[in-house]
């Protein structure tokens, strides 16, 4: 193992989603998830508010992710992209688990300020 100590995140800016794991991994994980873009809306999944939370322990990283629609055919593509981007920044040996959740349902309130500005709020 890479020996990353598990510690609560104490950085200045709050994470855009609940994060429970080593502080050292927090920003790389956020950056990686921000690489996953839904081209239809020209926004990344963090800004749209699709990431419900990330937790990291000694053996695994668990992402809770939602979609805006149950009829969305690109779910698997987005999940693949999430896995690929996380794979690039995480220490080897950490298992990546992406869980698709529908509760609570996504609402536009979850969007970042930047995303809302882009959409003309």
């Amino acid at each position, binding site marked *: 193992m890479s020996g990353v100590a598990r510690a609560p995140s104490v950085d200045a800016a709050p994470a855009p989603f609940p994060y429970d794991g080593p502080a050292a991994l927090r920003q790389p994980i956020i950056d990686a998830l921000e690489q996953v873009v839904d081209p*239809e*809306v*020209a926004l990344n999944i963090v800004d749209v508010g699709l990431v419900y939370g990330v937790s990291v322990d000694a053996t695994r990283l668990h992402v809770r992710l939602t979609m805006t*629609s*149950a*009829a969305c*055919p690109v779910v698997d593509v987005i999940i693949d992209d999430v*896995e690929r981007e996380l794979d690039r920044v995480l220490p080897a040996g950490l*298992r990546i*688990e992406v869980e698709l959740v529908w509760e609570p349902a996504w609402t536009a309130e979850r969007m970042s300020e930047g995303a809302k500005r882009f959409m003309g709020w």
Partner: protein
Amino acid sequence: MATPQRVRPAARRAPSRPALAVALRALSIAAVAASLLSGIAGGLLRVGVVLPSTDDAPWLAQAGMQHAALMICGFLGTVIGIERAVAVKRRLAFAAPLASALGGVCLLLGRVGPGARLMLLAALVFVAVNGVVVARQRAAHTWLLLVAALAWLCGCALFALQGGQGDAVAAALPWWFAFLVITIAAERLEMTRLMRRGPAMQALLGGVLLLMLAGAAWSTWLSAWSPAVGGLLFGASLSLLAAWLAVFDIARRTVFARGLSRYMAVCLLGGYTWLAVAGAAWAGSAYGLPLRDAALHALGLGFIVSMMMGHAPVILPAVARVKLQFGALFYLPLLILHGSLALRLGAGLADVAMRAVGAVGNAAAIAAFVLTVIGAAFVWQFHHGASRAAEVIR
């Protein structure tokens, strides 16, 4: 000490592919291609253009007669059926696209009755699949997807009742187009959730789509009473929908993004323009103006195919597991499509020869798009295959 292996969910999720599934998949792809290619050949035949080496092919006359059924049910219905089946992740859901794909082949072989019944079966299964979607997420856009499926069912029932012969296509057309247009409207409504929405927006869309269904219903059941009203209602609803999309759709915002997002928005906004034209032409045609070709193709090609060209780069990776490298070249088929359509509906209105030239351009646009997609898949493989190899070497 050996580095522990990372266990990635993708590896665990990788589906095993039994031989039957692979065979059905290959069969579906071949059948979709048959519907698309023969549908295009049939469309060209209708404007008097016979492709080389097809002039005495027995399927060509069928393709000419069943052009709309091949394009809407055999091709688009199958593609949408696959897209929805992928989303609900139920194996049985693939029965819908399988049936519509085979239905297209039957039509080509001159087995019109069985072909029409297969389309009906496809629509029935598709309604059930959309019922599953609604059960999973009760939202305005999922209900609309179900309404769209019911419109397809209604069109296919009319088509099958008349055995696919005579005026069967004309009877089914408003319903088939309602299926496609309401499907698109539902998906665009879902996207508006990212914008600040007033309460009137959803109600307005509901009103417009009710008008569309009323127009289709009038055309089907009340045309003996007053033949023009159905076409007028249907056409008005198309133009009103174009206005709704122009005001509320996110494409107005995403056109200011870059790359693929901007390209998709350009496809959408171009499509909305043709939707408005289609509405006016549909209503005019109902009052006896020679605008039927314009109405059907502004809608089918200008709106729906333009929309399809915009979404293929994101849908294909999802349904066919093929990744595409987006590039500026994607704009070329789009340009050919809209340019040739302008020719067909402009100069082609008075001049049959120009209409044929425009139609050839329409077909060329779709061919250029298919080539662009194939090229984009190779370019992606080239780039990412190379980077993966580099990772392994490192």
